[in-house]
């Protein structure tokens, strides 16, 4: 707060500012931001600073991830190859270097895919948690991922998607499957007003069981080779895509993410419950439809390229919220960045820990996420259950 502003406002307001944020005044230099606002509300400055910080950290992790593999490439070599690739549009100039080929053709696409998938799962988790007012909601727990997987498996069975990683028609089937399970979960949720945590989890478990059974059925009537491919994909695996496919996916996710992001302020109000949100001016039905539809769309796209990767969508938003607060205008993009960074790292573990063999990244996230989930359920019950 500027001094002249404080004087104009008179004595009473000055007292107010002091009461609101003891000790922060000296550190606050922004011209318009009052001390109490720094601490209590999301300022544009904090928004920018947080996202820049997280983005820089994500970039460092990414370079770190690119180092590891069958052939270790040093941190600075990675950075310099990346730098050159970004600067010149013809990285083929020095393509004789093996390191560069490995890095740009194999590792980088996969790391980027990991970032997109993780970011997307986390963002969808944020949206669903707000809508269902439940910090345990995520596309995996609610059975949306398995619904999408069923759709994708069906598409593979019918021979519509000839290769598993083509992202042309497969997402549509995955999307339909995801939407179906989302609708079922939502109908269960809506019929009781607000669902207790355990009922919702139960609904997700039942849906998961049904869809998994159907996927197993599909697997059993496939040939053994195709069945093995399907199974390892379902466990959650990232495979290096080519750049055009990556680009298409990026656009797809970016559009979905933006649609979700535009609902951020409405999501803030929806955490108060539908009735309160409505009384504060939110067109609740429309906002719900947008968020659910976008969530199914994004989950479908992600599942079609990566299979079922659990817990990212639940844990990342939860952890990020604890640190940066609940405002969805920051929570959504921050969770996306953190989720993406987390999955990049998890995938690096998955492909290096038992090298030359790879384990599905879904196994890594589940092994990390499962225990944390149990911890939350057992020790933070008061905060989660109703």
């Amino acid at each position, binding site marked *: 707060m500027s001094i002249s502003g404080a004087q104009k406002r008179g004595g009473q307001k000055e007292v107010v500012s002091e009461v609101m944020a003891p000790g922060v005044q000296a550190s606050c230099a922004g011209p318009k931001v009052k001390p109490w606002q720094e601490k209590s509300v999301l300022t544009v400055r904090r928004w920018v600073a947080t996202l820049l910080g997280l983005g820089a950290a994500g970039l460092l992790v990414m370079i770190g991830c690119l180092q590891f593999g069958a052939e270790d490439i040093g941190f600075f070599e990675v950075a310099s190859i990346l730098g050159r690739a970004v600067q010149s549009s013809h990285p083929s100039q020095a393509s004789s270097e093996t390191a560069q080929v490995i890095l740009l053709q194999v590792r980088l696409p996969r790391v980027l895919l990991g970032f997109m998938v993780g970011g997307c799962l986390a963002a969808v988790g944020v949206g669903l948690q707000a809508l269902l007012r439940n*910090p345990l909601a995520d596309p995996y727990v609610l059975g949306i991922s398995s619904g999408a997987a069923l759709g994708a498996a069906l598409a593979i069975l019918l021979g519509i998607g000839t290769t598993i990683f083509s992202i042309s028609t497969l997402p549509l089937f995955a999307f339909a499957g995801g939407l179906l399970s989302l609708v079922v979960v939502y109908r269960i949720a809506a019929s009781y007003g607000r669902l207790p945590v355990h009922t919702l989890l139960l609904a997700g478990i039942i849906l998961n069981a049904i869809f998994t059974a159907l996927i197993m059925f599909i697997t059993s009537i496939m040939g053994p080779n195709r069945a093995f491919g399907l199974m390892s994909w379902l466990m959650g695996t990232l495979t290096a895509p080519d750049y055009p496919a990556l680009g298409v996916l990026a656009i797809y996710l970016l559009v979905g993410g933006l649609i979700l992001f535009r609902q951020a302020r409405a999501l803030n109000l929806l955490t108060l419950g539908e009735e309160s949100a*409505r009384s504060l001016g939110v067109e609740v039905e429309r906002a719900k439809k947008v968020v659910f539809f976008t969530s199914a769309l994004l989950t479908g796209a992600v599942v079609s390229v990566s299979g079922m990767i659990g817990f990212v969508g639940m844990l990342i938003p939860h952890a990020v919220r604890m640190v940066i607060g609940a405002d969805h205008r920051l929570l959504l993009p921050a969770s996306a960045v953190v989720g993406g960074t987390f999955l990049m790292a998890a995938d690096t573990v998955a492909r290096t820990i038992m090298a030359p063999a790879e384990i599905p990244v879904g196994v890594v996230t589940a092994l990390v996420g499962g225990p944390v989930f149990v911890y939350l359920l057992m020790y933070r019950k008061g905060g989660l259950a109703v």
Partner: protein
Amino acid sequence: MTRQAYAVEQIRFSYRDGRNGAPAWVLDGVSFEVAEGEILGVIGPNGSGKTSLLKLMTKVFQPQAGAVHLFGHELAGMPQDAVARVAALVPQDSQQIFPFTIAEMVLMGRFPHRRRGGVLLGLGWERPEDLRLAEHAMVEMDVAHLSHRSIADVSGGERQRAIIARALTQEPRVLLLDEPTAFLDLNHQLDICRILGHLNEERGLTVILVSHDLNLASQYCDQLLLLKDGQIFQIGTPEEVIRPEILEAVYGCQVLVDCHPVTGLPRVTLPGRTVAGGADKRAHDQADIQKPAS
């Protein structure tokens, strides 16, 4: 002549939509008007439809029949945020499980006034004016010192005051409150009543409050609306409504009504031990008090 803030016409409302058998009407043919600048108290036994009425008047619910007019406009034809710019609701229970700060919570009241447009960042970031209004409301409701605390961590009374601050931040012309004093200690009860009275006098804010506290309603309201089983039993000034025979008919128990020593307005008390005479009679009376709750 004063303007009409609300005109409620023959509304019927049921939580069931009639698909599974006959709907049980929560409100059945309720009509009344509220003049601008009035303080209206809505009283009645549990389950008489008070809360539903408030939600119908803020378009949280829509009636199956009849209409609600807000300053001449029918609610059914108004966008949700247009309603929220005029009428602010303070709900009875405001659970929040996510760690929003009190200040963020209060600022949510600016949502209906948000900026529109902008493809990428159509988020309606708060303007300085929004922050100023929120600050003012927080000071008024005595939660300013809590502005950075999480809403999940403060006491019920502090949360309630924050919610009222949020409603004030909406800059409404009508404030509708559901049991605003239920979680508050005497001091803050008095504060809320004073603030409501002040807003009513200074800005001409119309206040509609649901309360179980008949004395509070009697002391602070210009008009009282007494509901019974989803219908209006009596509407009028406190003197017209707070009468032993009327309250007995609605609540099904004996009450004493005398005059408040300072204001002279009617005051309600339950018959005590000496009046009822004997423990048997007391037990009988208490059973009567509980009965209408069902």
